[in-house]
């Protein structure tokens, strides 16, 4: 009962942002299908990429460079910083707003003085987080599907991108759980957002540097972005190990959020 009331409240607070984020995700993936080079153009593009320095090639994705194809380009659409940013904005916005944001604003007193359990508050935030991420990831995939319908590309079907969209959802569900944990420990939204942004940016940069700088390649498993490789998913399918790591990190962070929030002073 109270989880439903809290969910309704979260929906009212975040619905406009969710609509914009989902629309942006849809548009970006649709636009990627417009700029994917046709089979005849890939030779030229391959030469262009061969001239690029290794760090740039890594940033665009191994599969894209190694095996230029429409599939590679579409996979690039799912690893581009823009769709990642869209998902990160939702993960941090909802997680931080539901706990640290309410505490910092003073509205937590009104909720917590009523018969609403603290686990219910964390659970409502987690459901809102997942539902929004699912919608944004689905909107992105629908953008790809729409684009491929109006511009069919040889050797790729919209269904091929479903596992990629699912992995993006799983990656940011894990990040959302981490953000919920941070939010459960903080007293105001500003501090929680700073922590989350720092962790996300640090993890992203670590993954990138560990790919281009062999001296620190051993650190790459410490980044959650290591377990999200759309072009490898397109090539080899979903890796069970990646799913396990992301799921375990998400579950552990969520359990920690429940435990910390249930015991803390508000």
């Amino acid at each position, binding site marked *: 009962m109270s989880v439903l009331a809290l969910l309704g409240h979260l929906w009212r*607070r975040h619905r406009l942002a969710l609509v914009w984020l989902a629309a942006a995700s849809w548009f970006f993936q649709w636009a990627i299908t417009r700029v994917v080079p046709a089979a005849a153009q890939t030779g030229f593009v391959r030469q262009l990429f061969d001239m690029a320095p290794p760090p740039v090639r890594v940033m665009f994705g191994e599969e894209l460079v190694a095996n230029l194809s429409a599939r590679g380009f579409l996979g690039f659409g799912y690893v581009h910083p823009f769709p990642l940013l869209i998902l990160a904005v939702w993960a941090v916005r909802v997680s931080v707003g539901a706990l640290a944001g309410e505490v910092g604003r003073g509205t937590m007193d009104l909720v917590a003085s009523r018969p609403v359990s603290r686990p219910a508050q964390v659970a409502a935030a987690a459901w809102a987080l997942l539902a929004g991420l699912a919608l944004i990831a689905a909107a992105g995939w629908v953008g790809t599907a729409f684009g491929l319908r109006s511009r069919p590309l040889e050797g790729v079907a919209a269904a091929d991108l479903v596992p990629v969209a699912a992995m993006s959802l799983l990656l940011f569900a894990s990040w959302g759980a981490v953000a919920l944990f941070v939010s459960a420990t903080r007293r105001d939204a500003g501090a929680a957002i700073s922590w989350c942004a720092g962790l996300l940016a640090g993890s992203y940069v670590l993954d990138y540097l560990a790919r281009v700088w062999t001296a620190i390649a051993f650190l790459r498993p410490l980044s959650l972005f290591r377990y999200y490789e759309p072009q490898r998913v397109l090539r080899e399918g979903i890796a069970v190990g990646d799913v396990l790591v992301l799921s375990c990190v998400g579950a552990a962070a969520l359990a920690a959020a429940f435990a910390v929030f249930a015991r803390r002073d508000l």
Partner: protein
Amino acid sequence: MTTESLGKRFGAVRALEDLSLRIEQGEVFGFLGPNGAGKTTTIRLLLGLLAPSAGGATVLGRPVTLGGAAWRGELGYLPGEVAFWPQLSGKRTLDYLARLSRRPPLDRAALLDRLGLGAETLSRHVHTYSDGMRQKLGIVQALQCRPRLALLDEPTKGLDPLVQQEFYGIVSDARDRGTTLFVSSHVLVEVERLCDRVAMLRKGRLVFAGDVEEVRRAQRRRVVAVFSGDVESQALGHFGEIVEASARGITMLVAQKDLPALVARLGMLPLADLVVEPPSLEEAFLERYR
């Protein structure tokens, strides 16, 4: 509602120490103290928003724990610094909070009417409200579901005098319906007017708890005498404490039991005017905090 040796520390700071109180059902209990005395900390401990460092409390007969239990539906709470969701309208705010309370808002319409919050105001986003309107909305959300126990932290803050009068009526009516009210304030006139009993806190410690009348009785009266001729007023010093004295007048603080003797003595002097001020809670408060 009871507290047993309740205490709270924030690091090295002792916000509350060894607080033992008992508040009976249906009474209006005033909780007095200067800023930083521990009033808000006490209320937050009673609500289970904070975990006590020592002791414990029961509310509505149940032990207070962190988190939400069903009996919280029988509570009403007005925070000292009331805050709402700026993008929600007043009506949505009240609906949401009533839904979380799991009780019907039986008294909402009457409260809105008495506090002058109309339909147009309620349809607006809360961020457009003045401080006074926010405080009114805070009072309505605390009392709309007819709670058995209401904890009101500085309830008249930001209200104009007319609305304050209306609020006193609301408290009186709530008490008549059997609601227990715990009112934290540093507005002494208000507590004196509203409350049956009071407790006074100072630096996290209980200074006094008892009936308002008892406080008044224990308090010395201020006696102002004006004489039509010169008098050796210092000679009256053994009746009480002289605040100010001259040949033509004297101001004293006198215990109730010494008043008859003083009045009899003054009657033997060339008395032009005599004022015996009723004792106020404010004087008791100031005397205890000096």
